[in-house]
């Protein structure tokens, strides 16, 4: 061992003193001084340190961090010489896992321990394993944006912070399910709550908050986010992250592999949340019609998750099961005495008959609504002058199959109209039905909707459809006048929902709430039958089919060009975009790419495509490492396949995305 001395106290070997601070990088930290030689192994040094500290504690997670070189000394069999450590090295003996605060895609904050010593790629994989998100390669961490000087001090209420720092995950093994959640979440009520937060969609945000949150107003704004991605091949420590820092966890690569509602509740929900915020904050633009679909899906998802109908229908096809049961039951019934009555009851399709006011817009007529006796049977609407004439020929008969049903409702004005666009060989005929009250409206409306799909009121979904319409009307009554001022707790009931929380702020300006509600309702009828995960999937799919979906923007300067331009990176292509106008100038597909190189010195990325097309640009808004990593990452993701399921070819990822960067 190092430190042999003569009787006079002179050291006779070539040993020297090494000072190691204990704890995280804190200049005030206590330190121990060891006598070492260049031949000493790191493992031996670690042992000595622990001896010196003379404290009983689990030191297994501790390792030495070399501050000047920004390097962990993790190879315990290496000698100090091999690392090149001399007496002037500032070394810290600290834990490799430290707490950070993670801002999840659903915007909730979560404290957990992350590895500060492994490459970020592995650290994210570990985090995702803890959160039970499959395919961690699609996610990464971003630095939180720097807070602008706080104008309104302590305005923001203290938010709930979930804590998973105490949870330890057995290494290597996929967490088993226990009580419907990964076993490590079921330890305490707290962690259970945390799992619910992760796996269930959050209620819609407060519209006022939505107004306040920063939204990109130009392409240039959209580039800012992408300058904050952390480097996957280096560890958190090397990137200047300290314990307790806030980091964002986001899906970085827009290529979602094998989304499976059954095995992926957390992943699906977080992806949905990211998509939802992306749409609400106008990161990805959409049209008005598309926004109404998004709003309707959010409303529907929120309703389902509030009502606790999280469980997916088991069994293959509920319809078939029902039928099975029904047949059994029928046999039972037939045995019984009242067979014919029962059958009669069951075979008759419910009808609606009532006096309604009908209006048929025609050229050159000023006639308004006129009262008629209306009979709605199967999918056909017939109307008569009065009830007495009902057995005879109706004035008109309309088969609603394939028709368009548009609500025209104003609750405060007590106007409950149904606009029908009924197709016929001659064209579409327009008919308005005016109902007296909500209840009547809900019944007729539900009937019309089913009929337009070719179903009758005997359909099992009829009662729920009626209920849904009533619920929506009450929503309009309560949320109708709201300008978005009411703060909304997380457990606000679905009924009191403000439609402004479901759409991007520009629609808050464009529409009044009472205009918005019927449009959302209209879009809702197409999605009302979806289950929670189906609705989330539908949302994600609709998001994916937006033309601007999944493009990461970065300001670059192309070689030979005098102005800045935008480079858009999508999962299959690179796009050169005019900065000022936003027009696509040129697109290159990854499938035509032969190679790409990064010149770290001049911060230039050079790409060669088929047919000797060469492109080079320097990166302005983000480091070229981020561009490089995006390209390599997408190439990596395209190599994934199901057969290799769980195991991730980390080396390949790091090969494709890593690289030297001059310090």
């Amino acid at each position, binding site marked *: 061992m190092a430190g042999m001395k003569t009787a006079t106290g002179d050291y006779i070997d070539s040993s020297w003193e090494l000072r190691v601070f204990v704890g995280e990088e804190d200049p005030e930290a206590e330190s121990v001084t060891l006598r070492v030689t260049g031949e000493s192994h790191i493992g031996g040094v670690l042992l000595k340190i622990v001896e010196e500290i003379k404290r009983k504690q689990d030191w297994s997670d501790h390792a030495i961090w070399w501050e000047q070189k920004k390097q962990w000394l993790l190879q315990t069999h290496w000698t100090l010489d091999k690392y090149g450590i001399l007496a002037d090295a500032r070394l810290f003996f600290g834990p490799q896992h430290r707490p950070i605060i993670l801002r999840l895609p659903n915007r909730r904050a979560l404290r957990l321990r992350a590895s500060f010593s492994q490459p970020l790629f592995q650290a994210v994989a570990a985090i995702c394993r803890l959160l039970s998100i499959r395919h961690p390669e699609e996610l990464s961490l971003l630095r939180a944006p720097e807070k602008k000087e706080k104008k309104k001090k302590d305005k923001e209420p203290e938010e709930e912070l979930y804590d998973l720092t105490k949870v330890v995950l057995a290494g290597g093994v996929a967490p088993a399910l226990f009580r419907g959640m990964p076993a490590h979440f079921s330890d305490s009520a707290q962690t259970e709550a945390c799992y619910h937060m992760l796996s269930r969609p959050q209620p819609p945000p407060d519209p006022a908050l939505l107004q306040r949150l920063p939204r990109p107003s130009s392409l240039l704004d959209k580039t800012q986010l992408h300058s904050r991605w952390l480097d996957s091949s280096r560890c958190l420590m090397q990137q200047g992250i300290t314990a307790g820092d806030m980091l964002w966890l986001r899906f970085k690569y827009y290529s979602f592999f094998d989304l499976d509602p059954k095995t992926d509740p957390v992943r699906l929900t977080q992806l949905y949340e990211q998509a939802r915020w992306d749409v609400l904050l106008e990161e990805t633009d959409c049209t008005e019609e598309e926004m109404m679909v998004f709003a309707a899906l959010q409303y529907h998802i929120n309703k389902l998750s509030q009502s606790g109908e999280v469980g997916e229908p088991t069994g293959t096809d509920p319809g*078939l099961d029902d039928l099975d049961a029904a047949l059994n039951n029928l046999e039972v019934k037939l045995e019984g005495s009242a067979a014919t009555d029962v059958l009669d009851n069951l075979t008759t399709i419910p009808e609606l008959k009532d006096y309604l006011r009908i209006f048929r817009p025609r050229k050159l007529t000023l006639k308004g609504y006129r009262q008629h006796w209306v009979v709605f049977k199967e999918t056909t609407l017939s109307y008569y002058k009065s009830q007495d004439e009902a057995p005879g020929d109706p004035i008109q008969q309309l088969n609603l199959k394939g028709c368009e049903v548009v609500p025209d409702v104003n609750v405060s004005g007590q106007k409950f109209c149904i606009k029908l666009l009924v197709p016929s060989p001659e064209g579409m005929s327009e008919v308005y039905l005016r109902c007296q009250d909500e209840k009547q409206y809900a019944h007729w409306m539900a009937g019309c909707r089913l009929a337009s799909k070719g179903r009758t009121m*005997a359909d099992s979904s009829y009662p729920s459809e009626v209920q849904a319409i009533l619920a929506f009307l009450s929503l309009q009554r309560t949320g109708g006048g709201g300008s978005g001022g009411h703060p909304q707790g997380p457990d606000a009931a679905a009924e009191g929902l403000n439609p402004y929380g479901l759409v991007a702020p520009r629609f808050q300006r464009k529409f009044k709430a009472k205009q918005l509600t019927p449009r959302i309702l209209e879009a809702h009828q197409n999605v009302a039958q979806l289950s929670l995960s189906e609705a989330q999937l539908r949302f994600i799919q609709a998001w994916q089919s937006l033309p601007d979906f999944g493009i990461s923007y970065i300001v670059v300067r192309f070689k030979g060009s005098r102005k800045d331009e935008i480079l858009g990176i999508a999962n299959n292509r690179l796009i050169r975009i005019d900065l000022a106008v936003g027009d696509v100038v040129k697109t290159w597909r990854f499938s035509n790419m032969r190679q790409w190189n990064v010149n770290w010195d001049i911060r230039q990325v050079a790409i060669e495509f088929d047919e000797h097309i060469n492109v080079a640009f320097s990166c302005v808004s983000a480091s070229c490492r981020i561009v490089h990593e995006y390209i390599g990452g997408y190439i990596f993701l395209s190599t994934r396949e199901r057969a290799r399921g769980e195991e991730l070819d980390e080396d390949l990822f790091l090969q494709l995305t890593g690289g030297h960067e001059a310090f």
Partner: protein
Amino acid sequence: MGESNEDIDQMFSNLLGEMDLLTQSLGVDTLPPPDPKPPRAEFNYSVGFKDLNESLNALEDQDLDALMADLVADISEAEQRTIQAQKESSQNQRPPASLEMPDFSGAGALGYGANVAAVSVSHYENDLPPPPADPMVDLPPPPPPPKPLSQEEEAAQAKADKIKLALEKLKEAKVKKLVVKVHMNDNSTKSLMVDERQLTRDVLDNLFEKTHCDCNVDWCLYEIYTELQIERIFEDHENVVEVLSDWTRDTENKVLFLEKEEKYAVFKNPQNFYLDNKGKKDGKKDGKETNEKMNAKNKESLLEESFCGSSIIVPELEGALYLKEDGKKSWKRRYFLLRASGIYYVPKGKTKTSRDLACFIQFKNVNIYYGIQCKMRYKAPTDYCFVLKHPQIQKESQYIKYLCCDDARTLNQWVMGIRIAKYGKTLFDNYQRAVERAGLASRWTNLGPASAAPPSTGLKAGTTQANGQIPQAVHSVSAVLEEAQRHAETAKDKKPAFGNHDPGAPRAHQLPKSSLPPPPPVRRSSDVCGSPATVPRAKGPRGGFPAPPDDSLPPPPPPPPLEDDELPPPPPDFNDGPPDFVPPPPPSFAGEAGSQLPPPPPPPPAPAPEAPKPPPVGVKRPPAPPKRKENPGPPGGGGSGEQDFMSDLMKALQKKRGNMS
């Protein structure tokens, strides 16, 4: 002919035997009083003919035969189902619903089968009282498990609801048939029977059968609106009867059977649709060259990317088109954009960013058609027009939208783009199936004349909504999974190849440049994933021979000996028989009908098909059995006062026979 007459007799006796069995099984049940009300009027309806007689007379002998074969098949099918249903319902009595039931399991098949039975019976047995209105009662109720009363009270409501649901579903499954006149390439026509459940794909398969064409993927059913001068390709997943029932009775519309390369153009040359815009911007020449050069591998990866992801990609399409103004013959130029959610235009003075776009039309309620000779008729700027209208609209109307493109290429891009946006992944699935079918056909021509591909029962039809629009999310999940599964399979095969590349690559992004065709980075990666792209795989090792499940072509086995309880299921599809299969006369006198008409030679309970063979074995052309002549006359005494389809059919058949002999 003589041979077939002999066949006829044999078939006839078989048929009678089966009918008898069927009625027996019905007899066991408690038959409710016959329901007098709804005679199935729709059955008389035939498309492309002015009236039913014409349509029946138009049926060629061969077709008639096939028609009869169809009907016979229905009976045997129905019988099989009924029996299966019985079995299952008894199975269902056991408390734990067994999950490993065969394919037909579940009440869906059961109810369906029962229903078929009801329908076909009604058509064949004119003299019998109409079938029970409620097919459910065809099921012999096996003894129900005794249930405590208290439970029943509680569950009564739930039960009632469920039964309601069941009945509703059964009603939905009413089977309707149309006789359709299809115009062929050579100006001839063929008439064929299309059943309500058949999809375009099934009808095409039928037509392949009849025409002995090469079965390539371009063959399609094509509808022409003579009056509106618009036309379109039937999508393979569309329900033919549903489409045709939107036509008016006196319609001049036609159905054609022809090759259209536009049908699946996107899958043959995806680059023309997905990469075209970019090509154009480089200058036309350049773009075209690269497009034509695109190799098969790149096409595959492009297709996979566009259609096999978790959501399909609609081609980016935008440009100035002419829009016909409502009710006028003037055309206005506007800038249109295609998105997955519909067609949008840029309002005056606005930009083409998403937030400024105004919605022109969404696809849920419209179909897309090609406009023909719009230049002449509507003074369109060019003849490259497409038309969007609700399928039910048959006359000129302001609700029909006409758009006009500058050239044919643009027109094809828009029409295909809209189809992709409207039908989504289904289009791709259709194509894959068509490719499989084409590959199969070429295989079979080598082996001998293909026998009929049985129409799949169209179980898929359930997934389509009113207008053929596919609810995306719902089924795409499974579709995607399926796709991924197959993907994985092929990928597994390729794995070694990947391994070879891998260790060599020193630094991923600096690729080895040594070999002449250097493996580009993406290629390298796509060795694993991209290259075994899905489409042509069907043709390849995997899809080559194995027939799609419902295309299996078993030789029609002789009718199995009939026993009371256990019936071996009849051959999957009876109408599969040899093309020159001669139909037996309809069994309109089976069972109780015997009182009015003498039973045909074979006695009703025909245990073995051979036994009742009529004596004239050696004689090639036996005289038609006497009662055949008697039968067609009276349209059946039953409750139905209207003209009966079956008797008409018989008449026509008779006529033909008479002419021959």
